[in-house]
């Protein structure tokens, strides 16, 4: 079934969003965001796949060999980098939240505090 890889990307996305929305721990929520984001890697690489093709690196390939799409692979690289940095920034926020409020449960963080 040729739809399956696309559907898997969608499934990973939905699982991640469900995790974020029902999370009771901010660190867990950040992890779920990373899962949500990884669905885009699956989608990008699925879009770029070509049957019977290999990686788009020509150092040991004839130049007319069939290769998968390098554009989406480059996009996936960008995606990974941005994902990692966003995770770092969010975890830094969680560290400060835990210090200031003494909890990482988003439901207990409803009131403003100076």
């Amino acid at each position, binding site marked *: 079934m040729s739809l399956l890889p*696309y559907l898997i990307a969608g499934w990973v996305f939905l699982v991640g969003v*469900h995790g974020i929305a029902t999370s009771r721990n901010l660190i867990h929520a950040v992890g779920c965001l990373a899962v949500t984001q990884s669905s885009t890697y699956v989608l990008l690489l699925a879009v770029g796949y070509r049957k019977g093709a290999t990686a788009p*690196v020509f150092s040991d390939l004839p130049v007319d060999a069939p290769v998968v799409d390098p554009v989406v692979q480059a996009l996936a690289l960008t995606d990974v*980098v941005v994902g990692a940095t966003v995770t770092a920034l969010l975890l830094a926020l969680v560290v400060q939240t835990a210090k200031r409020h003494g909890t990482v449960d988003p*439901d207990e963080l409803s009131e403003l505090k100076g």
Partner: protein
Amino acid sequence: MTRRLRLWVLTAGLLATAALYVAACTDLPAFGGSWHPYGDRAVRAALQQHTANAVSSVNFDQRAFDTLGEETVLFSSVLGTVVLLRRTRGEKRVAPGPAEVPAALRRYGLLVLPVTLLIGLYVIAHGQLSPGGGFQGGVVVATSLHLLYIAVDYKALERIRPLGLFELADGTGEAAYILLGAAGLIAGSAYLANTLPLGTFNTLSSGGTVPLLNAAVGVEVTSAVVVLLAHFLGQALEIESEDGAKDGGREA
């Protein structure tokens, strides 16, 4: 909103998203098909520019300007993390003591460290030829330094990791990328245009500006990861509140 109601709203939203997504997928080109117009053109352009690794060619030549944006995202998020994880009022820095490390872990860690460092530098330097490049190699190099923390202790890591120098290198890597782009303007072409001689295909010096931009990104990513981990480790090991509690101390 109660938890139960929230769950219902969420379920409705997820189901609707799933339905729309599946409908959209049925209109996508079939998985694994041979129709990749952008991919074919990118591969042709990469070969024209003598860059064996087409992904590197896309990242550092054809879409070099986008990679500048990506690098800037990395740079600013490191900046944000440094600001967030600074020592705040009511906190003090303590020097972490030496740690006991099993002899096997110490031996293995010290053995693997130089090998990992070398692999990282190799991955950065061969970005235009084989899978890898500045982003991937930078993370490997930064990881290799932290093997010292696992194999010995925090003090040893601090000795080989002058933080000020790495913060400077982070900015230098970002600046080098911007200046390399400007070199294209000076050469009479567009910003970030590949104006250097392209070299012989499949040699270390091929690809024009690609290896140079790779090196700039490698420096930045290495220092960015080192700086990020340094601040997280600092929070975990060095910074505690004045009354000695590790966290939540501000409330007390």
